[in-house]
């Protein structure tokens, strides 16, 4: 492998998997290019504005420079450092998140930022992803731990969900959802398989509830229960508890469909959240059912009409790309600034418009290659810590990529999470850099057993 070839290099490069830094560099370059496309104006000299540091793409370049320095520092660090300080980092992260409630700065309605010097802001919930990944890896890799036990699973879940809950309290739902990706890691480490099935079924049921007429779905569920009883009629004869079990499932399903989902949508979600979810399945949500908007009506007397402007414009931009795209800097939707938040959450649209399906496909393949490489790396680790950490990185990246892109192409409700390494934003770029390079560092030392 690569480590043989780099024998004559300085010690830190020994054993490094060069494919990941290589992919990292390519993605970073694509990201800066995409931001440049979004910001580009014909009448402004781009060369001079590049070095002025005022435009977003020049800022992103500065962030990239900082990140590369940090990446090198990480590669120079001893692997044991990460295992040793994993728990401490986690406590530090949680403390930072709690600190936002006191010294936090409100940006775009979420109080999750800590202002730093020089006009930069730090979002602890981003960094906490690294710390949570390290902490879970640390916990799971404990020598006396049997992850098949429920208590261990619960403790790991609590570790993963604490930052998520804090994030929700900061009104940053998007980032909170990212912590769900740790379930993929735990699944790998022995979380029972039926949970996956239940999870998928629950998701299917919720979507079915949104799409279908309540009564039709109830009849359908009843029919399914009937068919199950018919198929299992001999077992039912022998053991009555099977029947009870089926009936309980049926009751729960109908309960979710009938009461739980409407209740959550009307009373837990904000109006805009409910609208986004409904618009994903192509339906309108009537805000007058929503409690929070009703409260607001009393206060402000006006509720905005349902608006799927973002998704619509995003789909138009991507759809107009066609097979080969409009060409670099020729996308009319990008230049016209039709897609809101295009340099951050909707950065994929500029790529889709400029380079079309071909460009998107190549881009997605790069991501997939990165993910697969990370999984391969994770699987080849001798220490559980490194493996769990590797899966954490893969899961977090995957969740970000999948949700962000699905959101721009209308397959997922809009939640504000960035596209890794592409979206504009220092916090996010720094987080992913650290996540990836810690893994590269750990992998370089894969012969060691880390705990």
């Amino acid at each position, binding site marked *: 492998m690569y480590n043989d070839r780099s024998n004559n290099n300085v010690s830190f490069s020994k054993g490094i998997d060069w494919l990941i830094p290589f992919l990292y560099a390519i993605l970073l370059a694509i990201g800066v290019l995409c931001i440049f496309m979004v910001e580009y*104006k*014909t*009448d402004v000299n781009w060369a001079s504005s590049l070095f002025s540091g005022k435009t977003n793409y020049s800022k992103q370049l500065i962030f990239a420079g900082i990140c590369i320095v940090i990446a090198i520092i990480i590669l120079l660090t001893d692997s044991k450092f990460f295992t040793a300080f994993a728990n401490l980092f986690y406590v530090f992260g949680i403390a930072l998140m709690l600190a936002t409630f006191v010294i936090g700065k409100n940006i775009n309605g979420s109080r999750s930022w800590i202002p730093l010097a020089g006009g930069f802001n730090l979002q602890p919930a981003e960094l906490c992803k690294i710390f949570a990944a390290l902490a879970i890896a640390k916990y799971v890799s404990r020598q006396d731990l049997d992850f098949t036990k429920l208590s261990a699973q619960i403790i790991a879940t609590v570790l993963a969900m604490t930052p998520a809950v804090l994030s929700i309290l900061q009104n940053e739902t998007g980032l909170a959802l990212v912590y769900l990706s740790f379930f*993929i890691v735990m*699944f*790998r*480490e*022995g979380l029972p398989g039926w949970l996956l099935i239940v999870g998928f079924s629950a998701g299917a049921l919720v979507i079915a509830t949104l799409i279908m007429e309540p009564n039709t779905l109830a009849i359908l569920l009843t029919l399914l229960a009937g068919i199950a009883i018919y198929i299992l009629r001999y077992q039912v004869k022998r053991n009555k508890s099977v029947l009870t079990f089926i009936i309980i499932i049926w009751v729960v399903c109908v309960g979710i469909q009938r009461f739980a989902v409407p209740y959550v949508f009307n009373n837990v979600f904000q109006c805009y959240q409910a609208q986004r979810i409904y618009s994903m399945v192509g339906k309108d949500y009537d805000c007058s059912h929503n409690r929070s908007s009703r409260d607001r009506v009393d206060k402000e007397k006006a509720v905005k009409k349902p608006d799927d402007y973002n998704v619509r*414009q995003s*789909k*138009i*931009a*991507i*759809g*107009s*790309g*066609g*097979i080969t795209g409009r060409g670099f800097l*020729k996308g*009319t*939707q990008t*230049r*016209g*600034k*039709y897609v809101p938040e295009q340099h951050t959450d909707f950065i994929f649209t500029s790529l*889709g*418009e400029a380079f*079309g*399906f071909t460009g*998107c*496909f190549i881009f*997605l393949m790069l*991501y*997939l290659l990165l*993910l*697969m490489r990370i*999984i391969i790396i994770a*699987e080849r680790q001798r220490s*559980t810590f490194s*493996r769990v950490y590797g*899966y954490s990185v*893969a899961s977090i990246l*995957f969740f970000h990529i*999948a949700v962000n*892109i*699905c959101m721009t*192409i*209308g*397959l997922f409700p809009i939640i504000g999470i960035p596209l890794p390494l592409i979206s504009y934003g220092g916090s996010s770029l720094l987080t992913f850099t650290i996540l990836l390079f810690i893994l590269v560092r750990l992998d370089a030392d894969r012969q060691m057993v880390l705990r």
Partner: protein
Amino acid sequence: MPANNQSRSRIIQVIFIAVFLVIILQLLNLQLFSSKYRLQAENNARYRKVIYPDRGIIYDRNKKPILENTIMFDLMVTPSEIRHTDTMALCRILGIDSLEFRKRIIEAIFKNTRVRPSVFEPLLSPQLYARLNENIYKFPGFELHERPVRVYPYHCGANILGYVGEIDSNFLKRNQGRGYEMGDYAGLAGLERTYEKVLMGQRGINYFIRDNKSRIQGAYEGGAYDTVPFAGRALYTSLDVELQQLAERLLGNKIGSVVAINPKTGGILAMATSPSYDPNMMSGSEKRKNYGRLALDTARPFLNRAIKGQYPPGSTFKPMGGLVALDEGLITPSYGYGCPGAYTACGITIRCEHKGGGHASNLRHALANSCNSYFSEIFRKAIDNPRYKNPRLGYLKWKEYMNSFGLGVKLGIDLPSEDAGNIPDTSKYNRDFGGPRWNSCNIVTLGIGQDRMLATPLQMANLMCVIGNKGWYYTPHVVDSVERETIEDTVYLGRYRKKHAVVHMSDTAFNAIHLAMLDVTLVGTAVAAKIPGIDICAKTGTAQNPHGKNHSLFVAFAPMNDPKIAIAVVVENAGYGAVWAAPIASFLMEKYLKGSIDSARLSEVDRIAKADLIPDAIKNWYSRKEAQKHVRQMEPTQIEFKNTDEHPKLIFDPEAEPNRKPQRADTELNRQFMVPVDSRKKPKQQR
């Protein structure tokens, strides 16, 4: 332990790949299989700007521009850029209050959003422009935007030249695919309308990229799809603008029309109608207001009486009767009729102005003396022509002649909405007389240009071309040629370059008619029209009509041996043809043939131009309008509303509105108000 969950790694990888597959499938769907997104993107971001070329210029026969373009200015506003604007000063200059100001701003935002400019005040008057231009720096958010406007430098020819106006949805439907858009201007009347295709030129279209607030970002695809505008092409007309001006001046304070044609080409030299209006009223800032006023005017200034006024030609028709009889070989120029002062052969008495003395001893004398009996007789000869089996067939032949002269059919001039006049069909008479039982006696007054015969002044002038040219004419037209003539134009103008030969007679026969018409100005009814040194062939007419006093008609061509101008003049309700119509025609011919009017006659021109021959009914209408205006201008408190039993709405003037019938039987009340109050007083004031 690590090994126990190895298979889960596969599951995770499968999940990753599956999700990526779903994403790729959706991308395929969006980017390859739905074309609507491309379209929506174009709609979003492509801004189509139409570049309007200058409209074509219209020239008279001496290449003087009679309709051209000038630049006027619109005051534009971009609401989002209004900052520290001195609104009060602007309101003062424009003469509006702050309420109106606010209303217009809201309208502008509503129409074009706050970031795009909209028209705040269109087509500023020169004074207003001057004042705004020097103060515009005080009004951020406002700017002056130039716009080409049509101008008529000679202030004449409104009914020929026409005007442009905003198109409506019907126009759009009729002209689909020609590049018009809502809000565009197109020729709506006159030459502007007929030659719209030539005058409009070819529009250019520029595509721009615009952003989410509709601000222009730059050219679309580097201007690859842009097209360049081509200016409208010029029209070269046969009009003589000085003659036109004189004709309009002479018709001042009268209702009537003048048509002068160059018989050699069929080109219209002048075509005046009265009342008319200054064509500049229909372009520029006051346009809408003026249009409302003109359209409601009871004297109908928009009516082009030269092609839409239908009059009984009366005696002016007599030369035609002679032509038909000669061409059919029914008479010779020496044919005579012993007129005893009236024509009684049909049981009714048609009076003649002359009595005995051989005033109808041959065609020349009969025509010069305008003998009713003579022309009644030869008309009957034509109808009862033994060559055709019965009077109906004889009449049909006669009607064929009339139609070939251009009577009773549209001549096809290049102006919109020409009227055909009327030469009745046999079916009309069949209905009148209860079947085909009528004979030449029943319709004998057709022979002297009465009965149901109606002709437009254009048709009358065209008849003079036929006689002057000895049997042929070109279809009258205004436009002689078009700049950079295309094949399409040539096809269109071809109809005006074709000679129509309508009768084939010996020169002697024509000479008889010419000499007879020459006699009219030498010794006959139109001595007043005589111009020293020019042989004018003319015929007066005094047409009886159901609207009141006789119409004064006069037709002529000159010089006799080499006709250069053919003319027809109609002055409504003015009495004898010789009194008003003849001098008008005489001045116009002198002006055209000699270049100017003899100074000795200029005072006469003035007298005619100032003579007021507008019927009382119309004057009443004007004075009533004037009174209403005064009432409106008065302070509201000064108006007393009395509860009287008068019903102003029921009052109408039967003279002004001859076609309207009194409504229902409740007219007991009506009748006492049929004559408006002020019209009863008016005559006394005048005397």
